[in-house]
């Protein structure tokens, strides 16, 4: 259904959010248990954690790891994906590795990375990137295979330079695939970064969540989760969606 006004859309989104909070509140009242604190308790906790600078510090470290491993995974995945999409030989050569990479459980990669390369930040970022790279490759390879040869022929006939061909003719055809890769990539990386932190770092959201778990501090867990979810939403609204609109403007 197409909505007539942006205002209507905003109303629906806010209503849905309020309904969620209301449900949560009702459930907490009924259960009257320390395992499900009310929204008010959680929000107070968020406030305390923020003004004490504990949450911002850990959040900053986690975001930093997310950004680095995301950029790394997109970069390597894109280059390898294009190469595999364009070269049949390379595709056959690496396809087996790719299937292996896609199917190894994240936990195995993380454990092995820590064992082999030591408990360091570099290892943590590497482990996350390794988990993500295969899915980027698969998406970008699909795009590179679907590239329109006719348009590349135009570039060749008019003797366009390599860089002009790359940025004005070739890559724009892959933008939709980048967007898919970036979306699924971010959601995967958010999740894996926490596991990596839980297993082998002494800071970051994952580490904090583990601490709260040990102390059975549910309000703490929910407070961190809430902030984290808010950040993810913010990235979607402030970065991914405008970027997508910009890149696919011509379809309008």
């Amino acid at each position, binding site marked *: 259904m197409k909505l007539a006004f942006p205002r209507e859309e905003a109303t629906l989104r806010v209503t849905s959010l309020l309904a969620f909070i209301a449900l949560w509140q009702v459930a907490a009242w009924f259960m009257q248990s320390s395992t499900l604190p009310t929204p008010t308790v959680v929000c107070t906790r968020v406030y305390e954690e923020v003004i004490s600078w504990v949450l911002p510090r850990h959040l900053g470290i986690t975001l930093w790891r997310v950004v680095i491993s995301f950029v790394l995974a997109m970069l390597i995945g894109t280059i390898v994906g294009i190469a595999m999409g364009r070269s049949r030989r390379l595709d056959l050569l690496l396809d087996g590795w790719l299937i292996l990479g896609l199917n190894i459980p994240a936990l195995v990669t993380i454990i092995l990375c820590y064992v082999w390369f030591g408990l360091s930040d570099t290892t943590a970022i590497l482990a996350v990137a390794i988990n993500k790279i295969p899915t980027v490759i698969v998406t970008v390879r699909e795009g590179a295979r679907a590239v329109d040869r006719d348009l590349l022929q135009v570039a060749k006939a008019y003797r366009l330079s390599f860089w002009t061909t790359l940025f004005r003719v070739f890559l724009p055809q892959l933008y939709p695939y980048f967007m898919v890769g970036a979306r699924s990539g971010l959601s995967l990386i958010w999740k894996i970064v926490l596991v990596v932190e839980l297993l082998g770092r002494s800071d970051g959201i994952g580490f904090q969540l583990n601490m709260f778990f040990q102390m059975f501090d549910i309000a703490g867990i929910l407070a961190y989760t809430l902030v984290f979810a808010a950040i993810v939403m913010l990235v979607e609204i402030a970065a991914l969606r405008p970027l997508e609109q910009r890149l696919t403007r*011509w379809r309008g």
Partner: protein
Amino acid sequence: MLEIEINRKAYPDRGGRVHVALSDLSLRVKRGELVCIVGPSGCGKSTLLNVISGLDHDVDGVVTMGGVVPQHGIGFMFQEPRLMPWLTVLENVMLVARSDEARQRARELLTAMELGDVLHAYPGSLSGGMQRRVALARAFVIDPSLLLMDEPFVSLDAPTANRLRNMLITLWQRCNTTVVFVTHDLREALSLGDRVCFLSGAPGQLVLDLPIDLPRPRSADDAAVLALQSKLLQEHPELLAGLASNKSAEENPQ
């Protein structure tokens, strides 16, 4: 002078067998001349253009222009407009020539072709005729010394195609461009060309080289063009079977 000497051009077809597309083809085009190449579908007309443009290097033969292999300044118009859908009309034209003069020239060309109102529109929102006008502007913005055209006006309705042909002739006369225009429509060839060259079915060979002395401007509906067409059909029925524009030209007659 554009000189084309092709001894043999072959490529493997889908079944893996060798398909000889062109053989013993020798063609000279004077500077500023508009030559139409006519032949049945599948006779290697598009292959010939790909060889001339350098898109296809795998050939036993040479193509030179003024004594050297043509590198820059080649315009190419394909059967489909082949515009970049993510670039605006102006950006599409500017894609092949990026300088301030080119920008000025692109605007002038597009305005002269009545596309001044859609400079910043995307090709997806334009009609087929308009998209082809943009492609024609793109071909002329580089001020080409050689322009290759591969049945560029097929699948357009007659008035739109005629309008585009007139635009082509206007630009060609202004720019003194050498044009090689491939078509399977005999009447189109007769109405456009200084010369019409007939290719046989595959492997394509030059079978008739006919100067056209009809005065310009001409159109595909002129009595003189129609008379010439019927005269040719009478004199060379076996050669031209299936090429008259009111008959299906999709079948290879040989």
